[in-house]
């Protein structure tokens, strides 16, 4: 659906040239929810703006639905943008228009007859659960409601792709969850391909099928969300997925073990059995369970005892049980 080929973007500033995107290659399949995660300043927002050419790439190609975006005439570009809508972190609703009129806006641009536009806008606002707020102005809506209006507006022209730029970053966790559920529904029922830019791992875990990790303007890792979550290879991915350093800063520096339980082993009391069998104590530094694509995964960070013999026993035990683990260097 969307292919990026050797995409580069540099900005000229008074301080000199800044390379924001370096040689990005990416393929987003039709119908999938694709996540791009990175820390702030990694170039995520520029990347998404290069896709609909709000930012002109310095070099490289964007291919959308078989079309090279760079080859389009200005007029064709305006037309194509109607089939790749964008949703923003700050909602960006027209403040002087009601929710209904906001959803009508892209339809006005697409020259849809007024009556038809109004009907479609009403349907969409109902779809996002705001049928009672048709005539409310953005200032009368909560953050989550504003984002729902923005999503309805983005869907108005029946786009093939929804580009979401940090759309949950201004929302609280509960609202985030409900907005993500809405996106998931839209993806399932309407078949819209969704690209999500975020710095929150939770967003990726909850709805994405595949993920790309971006750092310093380069894609450092791409793969199925489950794969990247279980076995993060790049430093950035580890930073985003692993428990943050400051949460365990009061522990003394020792060897640590990261254990991941998949759906099957989640019921067995692994840690208790392990300490009994190996006669070695471990300190649980961090534990969490996550649901990825409907399956439960447990994650635990253990601080190992000092002596090597106990450690070997623990590792042997885990190997025997077929539990996935990895030794981590925890910098304290």
């Amino acid at each position, binding site marked *: 659906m969307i292919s990026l080929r050797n995409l580069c973007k540099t900005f000229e500033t008074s301080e000199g040239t800044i390379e924001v995107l370096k040689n990005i290659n990416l393929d987003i399949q039709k119908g999938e929810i694709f996540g791009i995660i990175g820390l702030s300043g990694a170039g995520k927002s520029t990347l998404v703006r290069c896709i609909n050419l*709000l930012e002109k790439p310095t070099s490289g190609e964007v291919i959308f639905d078989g079309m090279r975006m760079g080859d389009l005439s200005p007029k064709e570009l305006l037309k*194509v943008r109607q089939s790749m809508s*964008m949703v923003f972190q700050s909602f*960006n609703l027209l*403040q*002087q228009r009601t929710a209904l009129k906001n959803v009508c806006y892209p339809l006005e641009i697409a020259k849809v007859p007024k009556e038809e536009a109004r009907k479609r806008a009403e349907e969409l606002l109902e779809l996002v659960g705001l049928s009672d707020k048709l005539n409310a102005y953005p200032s009368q809506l909560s953050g989550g409601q504003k984002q729902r209006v923005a999503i309805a507006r983005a869907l108005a022209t029946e786009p093939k792709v929804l580009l979401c730029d940090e759309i949950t970053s201004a929302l609280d966790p509960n609202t985030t969850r409900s907005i993500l559920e809405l996106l998931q529904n839209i993806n399932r029922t309407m078949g819209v391909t969704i690209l999500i830019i975020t710095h929150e791992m939770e967003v990726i875990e909850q709805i994405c099928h595949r993920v790309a990790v971006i750092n310093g303007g380069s894609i450092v890792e791409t793969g199925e969300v489950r794969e990247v979550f279980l076995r993060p290879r790049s430093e950035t991915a580890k930073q985003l997925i692993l428990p943050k350093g400051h949460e365990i800063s009061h522990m003394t520096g020792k060897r640590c073990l990261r254990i991941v339980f998949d759906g099957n082993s989640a019921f067995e009391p692994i840690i208790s059995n392990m300490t009994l069998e190996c006669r070695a104590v471990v300190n649980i530094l961090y534990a969490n369970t996550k649901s990825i694509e409907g399956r439960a995964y447990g994650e635990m960070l253990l601080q190992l005892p000092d002596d090597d013999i106990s450690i070997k026993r623990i590792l042997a035990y885990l190997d025997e049980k077929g539990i996935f683990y990895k030794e981590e260097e925890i910098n304290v």
Partner: protein
Amino acid sequence: MFDQGMLELLGKGILETLYMTVVSTALAYAFGLPLGVLLCITDKNGVYPIPFVNKLLGFIINFLRSVPFLILLVFILPLTRAIVGTTIGSTATIVPLVVAASPFVARMVESSLKEVDSGVIEAAQSMGSSTFQIIYKVLIPEAKPSLILGAAIAITTILGHSAMAGFVGGGGLGTIAVNYGYYRYQRDVMAVTVILLVIIVQIFQEIGMRIARRTDKRIR
């Protein structure tokens, strides 16, 4: 304290002043609004950046704005004569008023339009809006309350300028104040014209603020 004649004169003065002010403001907006839009969109961060046009326009506007009104009025007398056929009276005053107010209005419009959130403009662009659609569907409607407030300021400024034109026979309350209050030392006439001008300014300002508040959907 005033005889019938003076009251009639004042009444005529009020009407002339209103006539000059309203017509000049309308014409100043006819020129200033498009100029303001042009200034806003051709800016290097605007929707349609043309830095050269922006700089040139900015220079011309700054030049016109830096000429004091009375000097401008005298300076363009030939132009006034060419357009209206005379240089005295309220209709003649409209010409310099429009010339002086248009650049001022352009700057007011520019600053109102620049208040529109760049994110909203970006969203409009992402939906495939053309530059023209962004101007009349996003920039102007979104800036409407601010534009109306600006218009209230513009109309009161033009009113003040129209009174200034009284010194060169511009008509309206300004002329009455100069001819009776200044040259004939009739301080009471002077005081009355000043009070009338103050009242008119207050009314325009208040109406502008009310309309602006009523049209603004951001605060409720």
